[in-house]
């Protein structure tokens, strides 16, 4: 593991490279005729390892700054970045790209990289007022079977 200042410089160089490549990709796709555009947009929930305010701010700004990816919102309590990607072949590919950037950022930001684990399963996020189940469990959840038992 390199010492801290070199990790920061390494991250900045890596990010500059990614930034230029993303610019080229987006520019090329805009100039392509509409029928041959490679665009496959998607909005994906990416589990994130950021903890502090500054880490959340920086990772979401850097994602948005890279053309072709855009942070729409974050959920701190679930540890999720909602990222809109322009060229997404599969969910796993965008998640891997974003998490690689986050790993490198956190390695550069933290003197000791420490805990980089993320929630592995995507938590179920629902609006607050729909969190409670619509009916009490067991009461009328399986009307067909109950009706069958009674008759």
């Amino acid at each position, binding site marked *: 593991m390199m010492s801290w200042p070199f990790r920061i410089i390494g991250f900045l160089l890596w990010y500059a490279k990614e930034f230029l490549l993303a610019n080229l990709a987006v*520019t090329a796709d805009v100039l392509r005729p509409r029928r041959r555009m490679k665009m496959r947009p998607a*909005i994906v929930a990416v589990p994130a390892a950021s903890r502090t305010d500054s880490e959340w701010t920086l990772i979401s700004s850097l994602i*948005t700054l890279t053309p072709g990816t855009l942070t729409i919102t974050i959920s701190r309590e679930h540890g999720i970045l909602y990222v809109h990607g322009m060229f997404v072949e599969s969910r796993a590919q965008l998640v891997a790209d974003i998490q690689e950037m986050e790993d490198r950022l956190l390695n550069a930001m933290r003197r000791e990289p420490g805990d980089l684990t993320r929630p592995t399963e995507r938590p179920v996020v629902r609006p607050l007022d729909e969190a409670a189940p619509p009916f009490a469990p067991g009461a009328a959840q399986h009307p067909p079977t109950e009706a069958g038992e009674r008759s």
Partner: protein
Amino acid sequence: MELIDIVQALGLLFIFLGIGTIIVSAIGLFKLPDLYLRASAVGTSAGLGVASIVLGALLMDFSGLNLLKAVIAIIAQLLTSAVGSMAIARAGYLNNALPAEITHIDELSLTRRSSDRS
């Protein structure tokens, strides 16, 4: 050719590169189908376009003070354009600007209230 001429030519090259990037992203504004893709495409002009014009101007009129000004201008521009794009995208999603139909995954729609879902 003297060094100063080469630097001047390089400055002009960067400025025209920036202008080209901005023109392409303006074309993108017309061609792309929805708010989020457009916000992504404008990112190229707000980031690379403006940065390379500032860099070109710096090369054409180089001094220590101008270097400091250019670095501050580029960093401030990159940070504010990113925050602005996020604010626009978030406001759009909260106001039911639905993504275009070619969007093949939308995991954010799971968090919507069912009355808003379409």
